[in-house]
């Protein structure tokens, strides 16, 4: 069998249904093999979107996303998608074509060292030099991407290798001597953690994206229910935990809620679960969690002690560790502590700015009420991300996907494409600003071609709002942030055959959301927002 066919067979063995890609000559044999297979190929309009769509698909389905790009510029365009997935620990396989083996290093047409270029943000990468290695490499790539701390794996395959005849046998087991991720938490450490928690008066759990990566929401809730310990979450930790859940205090960090940060500062034992407590979560504060004894649960040992030193580290799969903790924990008397937090929550309840045009916070509250409980919402990067993280109400089953780690603008549209293809029957909403919309609007073509139904909630303040806000606060002046003379966004989407409506005031919002929800095609709700609306 041709190696190209073998690659596609490997994808089938790994249960891949959809790949996002953009063809070129060096992936010619692969595309010919793909044509003959049952795997659906989604032609994106820019390789970056292939990465984001695969990543959105992976998060929505909790499986692995696959994207394909050709050599040179195709592979290079994929980089932003790969780096975004890496920063958020999303399992992804990126397959890139490479020039012929005998031409590598000769600077030929469309040659680029994609392995070298992506070394620092792939979990692992392979340049296939011998076609016989393909089944093993593909098996390993999938295994590495999804186990331990998930992440993107890149497989770079030269054109001549794809055309080589090989014997195909898909390995049943993986044995990589340098890769043995820890699953079970150390018993002694778990015991220590339990003792520490039992002796605490103001324990607090801090939930990160790792809880979702490990599919451990259920285990987390079970632990909370039994122990009665409240939780806060990071931006990545918002996904999957109901906002109105009694013990969910809310978002922490530089753009989080004051009361949640206050809870962190006042806690005596802080249980970090699947979070790296990076700068955005700590607000850059050196005093973060300084008072508390820290129990740090993470699958990646390198995260422990990197940003914060932990008293009790527990390395392993947080699903398993939370189960172990639940087994051994007893109810902690947190009544006083909970009421204390409740008081702060009342005290610091966010005061809304005056309603200038459309109030984005209100728009998100209204959207939360109107859309289905199991809707999937993607948010872009900028003010829209912060507003969504504050005001999108996470009902049980609802999902929230955003580029939390790398903060990649242009994420929301292609990610929503991935989500829609994963769950055609579920509501998918992409929240964005006028800046982020224009960074990925080429994907309107992908959406049209595949007849996808997505709601775009676009906050148009004719500015790069977040930078505008930052410059105004820091320099009392702004520069390079004006998006004046924006196109007519509604007309633009209409050109693709989608519906759209411009909303100028809060009172028109409900009608617009209703129309969008009833529409049988993609619909843009363009909210005109004052540039004075801020996130802080």
């Amino acid at each position, binding site marked *: 069998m041709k190696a190209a066919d073998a690659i596609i067979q490997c994808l089938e063995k790994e249960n891949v249904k959809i790949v996002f890609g953009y063809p070129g000559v060096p992936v010619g044999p692969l595309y010919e093999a793909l044509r003959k297979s049952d795997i659906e190929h989604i032609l994106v309009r820019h390789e970056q979107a292939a990465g984001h769509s695969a990543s959105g698909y992976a998060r929505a389905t909790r499986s692995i996303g696959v994207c394909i790009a050709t050599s040179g510029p195709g592979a290079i365009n994929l980089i932003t998608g790969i780096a975004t997935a890496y920063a958020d620990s999303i399992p992804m396989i990126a397959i890139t074509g490479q020039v012929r083996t005998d031409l590598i290093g000769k600077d030929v047409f469309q040659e680029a060292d994609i*392995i*070298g270029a992506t*070394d*620092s943000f792939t*979990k*692992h*990468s392979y*340049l296939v030099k011998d076609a016989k290695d393909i089944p093993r490499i593909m098996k390993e790539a999938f295994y*590495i991407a999804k186990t331990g701390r998930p992440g993107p794996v890149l497989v770079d395959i030269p054109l001549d290798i794809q055309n080589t005849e090989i014997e195909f046998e898909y390995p049943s087991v993986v044995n*990589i*001597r*340098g*890769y043995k991720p820890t699953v079970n938490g150390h018993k002694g450490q778990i015991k220590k953690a339990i003792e520490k928690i039992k002796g605490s008066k103001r324990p607090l759990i801090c939930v990160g994206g790792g809880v979702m990566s490990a599919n451990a929401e259920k285990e987390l809730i079970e632990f909370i229910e039994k122990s009665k310990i409240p939780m806060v979450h990071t931006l990545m930790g918002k996904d999957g935990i109901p906002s109105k859940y009694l013990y969910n205090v809310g978002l922490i960090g530089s753009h989080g809620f004051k009361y949640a940060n206050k809870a962190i500062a006042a806690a005596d034992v802080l249980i970090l679960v699947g979070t790296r407590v990076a700068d955005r979560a700590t607000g850059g504060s050196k005093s973060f969690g300084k008072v508390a004894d820290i129990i740090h649960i993470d699958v*990646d*040992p*390198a995260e422990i*002690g*990197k940003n914060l*030193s932990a008293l009790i580290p527990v390395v392993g799969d947080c699903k398993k560790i939370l189960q172990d903790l639940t087994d051994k924990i007893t109810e902690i008397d947190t009544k006083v502590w909970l009421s204390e937090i409740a008081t702060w929550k009342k005290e610091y309840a966010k005061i809304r700015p005056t309603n200038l045009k459309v109030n984005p916070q209100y728009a998100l509250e209204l959207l939360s009420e109107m859309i289905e409980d199991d809707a999937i919402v993607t948010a872009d990067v900028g003010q829209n991300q912060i507003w969504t993280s504050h005001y999108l109400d996470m009902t049980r089953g609802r999902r929230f996907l955003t580029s939390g780690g790398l903060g990649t603008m242009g994420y929301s549209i292609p990610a929503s494409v991935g989500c829609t293809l994963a769950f055609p029957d579920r509501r998918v909403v992409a929240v964005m600003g006028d800046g982020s919309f224009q960074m990925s609007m080429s994907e309107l073509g992908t959406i049209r071609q595949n007849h996808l139904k997505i709601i775009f909630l676009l906050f148009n303040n004719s500015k790069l709002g977040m930078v505008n806000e930052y410059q105004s606060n820091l320099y009392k002046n702004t520069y390079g942030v004006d998006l004046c003379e924006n196109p007519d966004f509604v007309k633009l989407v209409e050109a693709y055959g989608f519906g759209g409506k411009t909303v100028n005031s809060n009172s028109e919002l409900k009608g617009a959301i209703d129309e969008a929800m009833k529409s049988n095609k993609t619909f843009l709700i363009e909210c005109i927002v004052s540039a004075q609306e801020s996130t802080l």
Partner: protein
Amino acid sequence: MNKYILSILVENHSGVLSKMAGLFTRRGYNIDSLTVSITDDPSISRMTIVVSGDEQITEQIVKQLNKLIDVIKILELSPQKAVSRELALIKVTLEQNTRSFIIETVNIFKGNIVEMNAKSMIIEITGDEETVSTFIELMKPYGIKEVVRTGLAVLQKGSEMY
């Protein structure tokens, strides 16, 4: 700032060195010396990396290196429990009145003169890092033309294998 010696077993295939070096660059770690060679198992190479830093940085380096799929095993060696050797070649200027002093020093350090002409000689010195450094210092007044050092080769003492 302390010195730490990391003895690292890695998969012996192309690209591994660049992944390791890339990690050091990206995270801002400094390498004092690096040696790479294959082991008795041709599929495995041993890298000996000497780094300076505090304990926390070194712990991070070890953890980050361990995340690389191609890294099989890392052993942090303490100088007391390990034997370390470095080889240096030093090209020194020769003059009529300095020749015998240089040869005397080479003998004291159990070095070899591996090449000699009317104007210069190349001296081979083997020893731990400090011995080599001391020798180079002693040669400086005579005029060093060029120096090359291999970096440390280190093995743990005792009969255990790892």
